[in-house]
């Protein structure tokens, strides 16, 4: 696991040694970064683009390097900076201090930024490379079109020793503007291997237990979750949540630390349940911990998705059912389903279906208002007058996002809708009306 100590002249050696300890499993990447940055007073490449999966230590490695070596840097996240002006202001105050930043006008443009930067440089010329770290750089693409190309060649524009690091999960090919730009150096942070994950995760062992025990626990955890999730942060969270359940047999005295099989048998079904609940955020982690404390059955708690039941008025329910039928049945089958004396239909032809055309695979189809009302009248037993009430219920179903309106070109003259609820939802609703919807669905014939 331990690689060579980071080396680069121009930096204090003891700092580099402590750095090596901080950056386990990322020595190679840290070494490359450090050699690219070079000595503090040397020029560095204008822009470097670092990509890699979530939680592979991109910002951790970079920011640890910059803070530990006490280099001048500004770190901004594009999530916070909703406009270019905000970002430039933050960068400027981090590099030159807040009193220099007051020179910037309100909501500065790039032109202002560059001008004031040049002025500030004259007063405080760079003895060290200045670094700008932009996290979540994929959001730069949605900001002003000139921001990304300008950041990439900032060194040339401000004529100072400055390097811009862009960090992102997305590959560089998706960033390149139409007319091209200054090409940054690309640096990849590879994902952690299983062994590395094991190594990193078992470092937060609890002091009351032996490290071997914790390592074997992490091993079991990875055995369950590794094929689904490789996100270090998520795994660490899950490991912390479930550890006390793992230790339960030890505390009760049912097993000793060497009974790995017994421990495994105890924790494995529990972890599988965790994947269906707490991994999907169905159950919050506080609830999950409480549950373990009370030793309730793990599924006793209803998750978020179990609360999908919605109480609706009588006619709204039928309207929604009619909309579902209209969305998922082809219009040519309406005669057969909803007319009492439909003409003769060739049965073989009617039942011939292809899997490809199944609407439960393709999704809902749009239908006009007329068809919705026709199905509605034939589904509802009693006579219903087409009052304003009915129509307002339709539009309120749209605002509840149970229906969606397709094509907003005409609001009044025969608008088209789509049904936006799932099969489970509509089944629950039809059960409350004792209406057997499956009999009316073409896909389930």
């Amino acid at each position, binding site marked *: 696991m331990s690689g060579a100590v980071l*080396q*680069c*002249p121009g930096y204090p050696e003891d700092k580099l040694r402590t750095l090596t300890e901080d950056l386990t499993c990322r020595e190679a990447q840290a070494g490359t970064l450090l*050699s*690219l940055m*070079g*000595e503090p007073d*040397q*020029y*560095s*490449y*204008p822009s470097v683009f670092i*990509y*890699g*999966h979530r939680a*592979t230590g991109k910002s951790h490695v970079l920011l640890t390097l910059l803070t530990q070596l006490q280099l001048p840097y500004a770190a901004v996240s594009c999530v916070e900076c909703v406009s270019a002006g905000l970002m430039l202001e933050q960068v400027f105050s981090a590099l030159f201090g807040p009193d220099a930043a007051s020179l910037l006008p309100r909501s500065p*443009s*790039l*032109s202002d930024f*560059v*001008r004031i930067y040049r002025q500030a440089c004259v007063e405080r010329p760079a003895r060290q490379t200045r670094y700008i770290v932009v996290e979540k750089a994929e959001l730069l693409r949605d900001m002003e079109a*000139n921001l990304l190309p*300008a950041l990439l*060649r900032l060194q*040339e*524009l401000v004529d100072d*020793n400055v390097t811009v690091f862009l960090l992102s*999960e*997305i*590959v*560089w*090919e998706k960033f390149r503007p139409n007319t*091209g*730009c*200054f*090409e940054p*150096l*690309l640096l990849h942070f*590879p*994902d952690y*291997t*299983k062994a590395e994950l094991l190594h990193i995760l078992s470092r937060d062992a609890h002091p009351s237990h032996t490290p071997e025990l914790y390592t074997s626990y992490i091993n079991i955890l990875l055995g369950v979750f590794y*094929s*689904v*999730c*490789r996100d270090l942060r998520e795994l660490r969270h899950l490991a912390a949540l479930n550890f006390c359940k793992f230790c339960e047999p030890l505390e009760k005295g049912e097993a000793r630390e060497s009974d790995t099989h017994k421990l495994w048998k105890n924790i494995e079904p529990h972890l599988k349940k965790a*994947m*269906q609940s707490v991994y*999907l955020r*169905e159950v919050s982690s506080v609830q999950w911990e409480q549950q373990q404390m009370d030793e309730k059955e793990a599924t006793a708690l209803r998750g978020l998705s179990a609360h999908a039941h919605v109480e609706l008025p009588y006619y709204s329910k039928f309207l929604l059912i009619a909309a579902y039928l209209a969305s998922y049945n082809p219009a040519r089958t309406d005669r057969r389903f909803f007319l009492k004396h439909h003409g003769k239909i060739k049965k073989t032809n009617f039942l011939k279906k292809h899997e490809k055309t199944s609407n*439960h*695979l*393709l*999704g*809902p189809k749009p239908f006009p208002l007329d068809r919705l009302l026709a199905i509605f009248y034939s589904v509802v037993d009693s006579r219903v007058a087409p009052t304003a009430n009915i129509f307002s219920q339709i539009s309120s179903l749209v605002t509840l*996002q149970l229906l*969606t309106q397709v094509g907003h070109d005409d609001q009044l003259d025969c608008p088209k809708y*789509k049904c*936006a609820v*799932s099969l489970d939802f509509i089944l629950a609703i039809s059960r409350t009306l004792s209406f057997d919807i499956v009999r009316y669905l073409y896909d389930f014939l």
Partner: protein
Amino acid sequence: MSKRKSMEKHVAVGECVSQVQRVLRERFCHQRLPDKPVGLESQYKHLLELLRRTAVHGESNSVLIVGPRGSGKTMLLRCALRELLELQEAKKNVLQVHLSGLLQTDDRIALREITRQLQLENVVGDKVFGSFAENLVFLLDALKKGDKSSSRPVLFILEEFDLFAHHKNQTLLYNLLDVSQSAQAPVAVVGLTCRLDVLELLEKRVKSRFSHRQIHLLSSLSFHQYRDAFRSELTLQDGFPDSKFSQEWNLGISKLCEDKSVDEILQKHYNSCKDFRSLHSLLLLAVSRVSVSNPILRAVDLLEASRMSSADSKGNILHGLSVLELCLIIAMKHLNDTYEGEPFNFQMVHNEFKKFLQRKSHSIHNFEKPVVFKAFEHLLQLELIRPVDGGMCKVQREYQLVRLMLDHTQVMEALQRYPQCPTDVKQWAVSAFG
């Protein structure tokens, strides 16, 4: 005694290496100007003559320098300006205005910048920050009042010229070129752009005022010249403090140039891209590996640098996916094959995945649908799949139509490189039926 001597020598090597790094980094990163532009002699002469006419004789001119990115447009211009300013009569006389399309995004900002760079602010006091129209009138008046003989010539340098053509009504370009056409104060308008069709972007009235003088920098570098450039970029100049070290270094470089493997790497880079900037980034990656323990540039360093710069980024991203996500990608690949590139939604992918699970009943990849959906959303986030309508349509998320942004070979290659790929998944990927 001997120990101290070796220590001293060691320090000296460290010093030399850091000097080498300093010199070369300034060359590669900071784009230091060369003494003479290489391979662009005729263009250089043309441009210099043009600028000299404006600076010395007071002629008004306009010219466009057109060339692909990294072909040395800015370098050419800066070299020409450097030589121009060495002339005695030009040095005191000429005013320069540098504008960039990236920074001056509209005419108002550009105009303010021009006033500032001509140092006219103090002349008008607070008037500079008056309205756009006032500012323009003032500036034009100032330019019109001048004449050929008495007023100082102004060089307007517009980088990213094509972006100025997107300004409203192209007012700035119109006025600048208009001044350059009529007999007013002598100005030279030099535009730098990478778009070959830049003249098509100009309005008719603007286009008619432009002199249609274009300097093209289309690189006609042969591989031999490319290799020579490689050598000269790495060679240390005479001014290097430690002459013994610089000799050794230069010897190492010339040895490196004769190496077969280096030749191969250079050929590969030459074939993909001829410009100097990509060469610089390759060399920087190689040079950054030079350290005290390894004071000479080796072929291995270059090989490593070339490997780093030419890595397939999507393959790298695919390498880090979980098995479940990889399975979904394979399902999508099968859907693409059977339905010939039609877009698909999550339900279809899940259906395809379920079919695979049913065939292999002993499979361990039996996940709940929400877990699979989470994996699908992660792929969306990584932009390996992309919504067809840009995610604008309000449809349930599992019915949103998406397309796979990978091709067949990329998927197969990633599968080969994937660590500990389950055999049944591999077989499923190669099997023809979905």
